[in-house]
């Protein structure tokens, strides 16, 4: 194991496959647009949940948006690095439509935000899998 000690997630899955398949969505907010009903869907799916069409096109969504739902900060571990509580996990409406549930980064301090606060995507380390590899993906930072 590597020399830097870090908490490990998902103890039972000895594979990097799941994280690898979903990397485009995590790295660049890539989702799909249904060519039949026009709905924008994130994360990417194989079949449109609205009209059951398979006629979907991969699209990268905007990396900026606003907070639409900000529940109480979590004082129990949800996922990823579990030793920097509380976790501020919020629902974000991206500028071109889809909703994303994401964690806020620690700076600027997320203590004072409300619904409507502007955020932008930040590329961060999400967690470490039990065979040691890092999983990177999106978090959001508050734009002043």
């Amino acid at each position, binding site marked *: 194991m590597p*020399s*830097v*000690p870090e908490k490990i997630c998902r103890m039972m899955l000895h594979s990097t496959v799941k994280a690898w398949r979903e990397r485009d969505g995590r790295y660049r907010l890539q989702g799909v647009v249904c060519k039949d009903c026009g709905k924008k869907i994130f994360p990417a799916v194989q079949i449109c949940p609205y009209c059951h069409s398979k006629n979907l096109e991969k699209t990268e969504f905007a990396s900026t948006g606003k907070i639409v739902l900000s529940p109480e900060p979590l004082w129990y571990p949800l996922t990823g690095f579990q030793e920097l509580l509380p976790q501020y996990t919020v629902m974000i409406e991206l500028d071109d439509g889809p909703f994303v549930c994401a964690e806020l980064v620690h700076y*600027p*301090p997320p203590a004072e935000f409300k619904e409507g606060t502007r955020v932008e995507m930040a590329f961060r380390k999400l967690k470490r899998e039990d065979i040691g590899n*890092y999983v*990177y993906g999106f978090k959001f930072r508050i734009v002043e």
Partner: protein
Amino acid sequence: MTVGIKGYGVYVPPFRIKVEEIMQTWLNSNPVFLHDMMNLKERAVCDYDEDVITMSVDAAKNALKMAKLEAKEIGAIFLGSSTFPYVMKPASSIVLEALGAPNNTFISDVQFSGKSGTVALQICLALVGQKLAKNALAIGSDNLSIHTEPGDSFEYPASAGAGALLLGEDNLIAEIEALETYNSDTPDIYRLEGDRYLTRGGDAMVESNVGLPSHTTNAVNKLLEKLGREPKDFDYAVFHQTYGVSPFIIGRSLGFQDSQISPSLIADEVGDTGASSVLIGLAKVLDEAKPGQKILVASYGSGAGSDAFALKVTDKIGSVTRSPKVKDIINAKTYINYATYAKLDRKYQRTGGE
């Protein structure tokens, strides 16, 4: 056609630890030495979820934003660092996908300790010059803090940060006029296979002239000779910054004035950012540079070598939008104590299940 810089981007993690905080824990230095002699007040610390790769992506996105360029137009990405998270697996491939650059982009990681960033710059320069890539991204990024032993004297300046330069042939804000290098086998600071922490080759190597001053002086003198210029012909000089005082020591010995060096100073507030040190220094200078001004850049990497570049600022510099400026990035900060820093940098031992 001349190859030059189209855009630049910088990222410095927002957490800062003051040198007094480290001093109160270890009692192994004194404020007069650090503040007045070494010109070091505080340094950056990475957040829990940041590393060389995430900082590189942030810096690269800033560079692309400045050049108003889509990631799809990048032809090469070279990432220089001495502290990659993976020993075997390129970090540049993660940067490539995170930016959304095409899969047939030339990419690689390069390692030459503190001058890794300028080595990446050399490679990109060659690729653009040979028309193998239209736009090339040279990134220098380092997290020295996490690889510095607690209680070591290098713990005071060891910091983290990233700088990215976008090279190309059109819409240049600065042209690269010439480049020179000087390398030798000098084991001053190194990290062995499997080692977590950096090793210093003793005070005779680190504190004497054999490393940083000697290599930088040789590279810069060679460059000045090649161009037929003198130190006074440059408006700015950017040197590797271990401490806030290091660029002034090197600059004075070469014949530069303090006023040429001080615009690039970052180490007093950020510390030694390793491979990104000169890139952040250069970005700070480009934030205020005027058309026609000349800049000299000289990096240093332990082990050891130095790359010296001469740049000429073009008229385009007036029309670029810099958001954010290097000063704003450095000033956006929050102070942490030693315990938090030790946790964020995972400077602890754990057993069982982890």
